[in-house]
């Protein structure tokens, strides 16, 4: 049993933290996070060179990381800095490509993503299938050698800046995986910082990666959920720290408000949940390549959803008005924590998944 991270990961974590704090401060963040394509190519390239993307890929697939712990280290730092760059979409794409890494193409594509040359995203969810694979309506049709796709996709994380778009669509064999350019795209920052697309496919020509990819898609989603958990832990940790600092300096009634016991006890309850969130995320990371990964990821994302809501709402309340202003960076941390629960299945979606797994 060893809860220390390896030297390699510590170095990555430290260099990423230093990079983000030097090069991606709150001002830069806000200027990137809310303006399409919600992505800074310069910073992206620099982080690729730092090895951030290859840390998300296993050695056998051409990276130098790819385990749950690697994902944790990277996303916790991204969360700490509230970094809006499209790492989530890239992670999902890298996972899926690695799952089908028998072809040279996939290998080449992984290398291109890791180097920062290509930017990838995965189109999974749809207007009427916002958090489940069971109702995907986008259809893949084969005519001779040529596949075409027709359907609507939403919640494509990293879509606005992606140069390579993987698409999940129905085939005769189940859910397949394709590469295609959308016929129309709307780019937004609806998860609060970081780009999301909705996309249309209308008899769009597509390259088929696999006609039956359900298990691999589920696996990629679990990996993405773990990444969101780690991101939330980083974000909550910083927000908690900011809240503590604020309570220690803010004076009312002639004393610092940190001296009010009712606020102290609420602060402690927040802190305890952040500790718990970190623990369950570590567990989910450790289990990521095991058979019961999905269960542990669902437990983690559920607890994270509850923690994120508690920490965000309590932090806002304990700050008072200042915690609601755009100018105070803590408000963006709480906003991000709230929106994060909406991604890849919220707290209740995880419960439903767990109940399905148990039955």
């Amino acid at each position: 049993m060893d809860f220390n991270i390896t030297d390699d990961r510590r170095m990555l974590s430290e260099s990423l933290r230093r990079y983000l704090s030097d090069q991606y401060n709150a001002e830069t963040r806000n200027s990137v996070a809310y303006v399409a394509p919600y992505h800074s190519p310069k910073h992206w390239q620099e982080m690729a060179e730092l090895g951030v993307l290859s840390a998300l890929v296993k050695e056998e697939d051409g990276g130098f990381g790819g385990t749950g712990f690697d994902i944790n280290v990277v996303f916790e730092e991204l969360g700490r800095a509230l970094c809006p760059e499209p790492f989530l979409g890239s992670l999902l794409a890298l996972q899926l490509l690695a799952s089908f890494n028998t072809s040279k193409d996939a290998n080449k594509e992984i290398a291109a993503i890791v180097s920062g040359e290509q930017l990838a995203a995965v189109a999974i969810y749809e207007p009427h299938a916002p958090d489940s694979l069971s109702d995907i309506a986008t259809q893949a049709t084969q005519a001779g050698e040529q596949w075409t796709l027709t359907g609507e996709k939403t919640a494509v994380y990293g879509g606005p800046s992606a140069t390579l778009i993987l698409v999940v669509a129905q085939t005769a064999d189940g859910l397949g995986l394709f590469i295609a350019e959308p016929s129309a795209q709307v780019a937004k920052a609806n998860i609060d910082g970081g780009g999301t697309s909705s996309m249309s496919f209308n008899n769009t020509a597509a390259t088929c990666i696999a006609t039956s990819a359900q298990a691999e898609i589920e696996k990629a989603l679990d990996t993405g959920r773990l990444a969101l958990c780690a991101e939330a832990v980083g974000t909550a940790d910083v927000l908690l720290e900011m809240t503590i600092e604020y309570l220690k300096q803010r004076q009312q009634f002639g004393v610092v408000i940190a001296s009010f016991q009712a606020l102290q006890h609420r602060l402690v309850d927040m802190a305890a949940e952040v500790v718990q969130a970190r623990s369950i995320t570590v567990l989910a990371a450790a289990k990521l390549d095991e058979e019961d990964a999905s269960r542990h990821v669902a437990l983690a994302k559920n607890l994270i959803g509850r923690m994120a809501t508690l920490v965000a709402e309590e932090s806002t309340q304990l700050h008072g008005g200042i915690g609601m202003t755009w100018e105070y960076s803590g408000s963006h941390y709480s906003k991000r924590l709230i929106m994060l629960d909406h991604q890849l299945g919220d707290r209740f979606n995880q419960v439903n998944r767990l109940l399905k797994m148990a039955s």
Partner: protein
Amino acid sequence: MDLSFTTEEQAFRDEVRSFLDTSLTPELAAKGAANLELTKTDMEQWHALLNAKGWLAVTWPVEHGGTGWTAVQRHIFEEECAIANAPRIVPFGLNMLGPVLIKFGSEAQQAEILPRILNGDDWWCQGYSEPGAGSDLASLKTRAVRDGDEYVINGQKTWTTLGQHADKIFCLVRTLAEGKPQRGISFVLVDLATPGIEMRPIKLLEGGHEVNEVFFTDVRVPAGNLVGEENQGWTIAKYLLTHERTNIAGVGFATRDMGKLKELTKQIKRNGQYLSEDTLFMAQVVELEADLEAMRITNLRMLQSANDGAAPGPEASMLKIKGTVIRQKINALYRSALGPHAAAMPQDAIAHDGLPAEAINAAATYFNNRKLSIFGGSNEIQRNIIANDILKG
């Protein structure tokens, strides 16, 4: 015990409904339904419609041009307006300054200012909070120094809601530096056109501009703009806080929002079924409905005490806490229902087939309404007030 309204009250409700049916423009109602930001013109238009009907000053006695309504009538009016998606009455002139002038103002002030509020000649805003004086309002530092026939004001106010539309501001200012901090506060009226005033917007986390900072540098105000006596400001502020907080529970808003939430669950699909069939989600909804139904009665019980002449006590604080928490929970569930299609800021919503128009504002409304438990005396301050009352004696 009888929970139904009297025949007169029911007739009044019908009258309100029929007024709203005929007078509330579809444009205003649509904006309200979608929780869209109202323009200054929208609000002025609504005030004018109400004023024409004589229903604008719901907290004023008849002799000053108000409705003279009972607490129950006010409740009915506010509930019907909320359900009809009517704009809120902007409270600063009508529900805050007006009652203060009627209670503490000189005859001259009443005669000059009250009609201008009714007619919409002046838009008032509030200068209470300061960067260092939020929950602890008595620690405010903005100074007003008497200089001949004038006060010279220096300092800074903040959280001034809709100040960007305002012509005038009523302020709490420090007129005495010594003694208990509550003692040296005065209530002063200031024309925002006076030299030395600067109003700066505060952008909120959901991107909206609703509140402002106001800076005062050597602002000279006629001494006649003082309301009541010098150093009587704390009494006036307390009067406002405990006697004129109409609609503190916001039952009407909560009812409207609950209706929208339930509507939404019939429009959103998850796992191949409508959210209205999702046990876990709907369990949250029905428990919240129980809370809301209880609060509706709690509110009526306290209205009855008010009608019966009981002094408003800690009950108002309890209503403030429950009312704000219930509204915030409804907002949270509405946001949560949208799953990945919720957008933190309206401009980032992605419209698609099956999403109602107001979904665009779901998360922004949630974020904006975090204020409900912070302003008007934070819920922590309310808990202190109630605890004091419970534990006294």
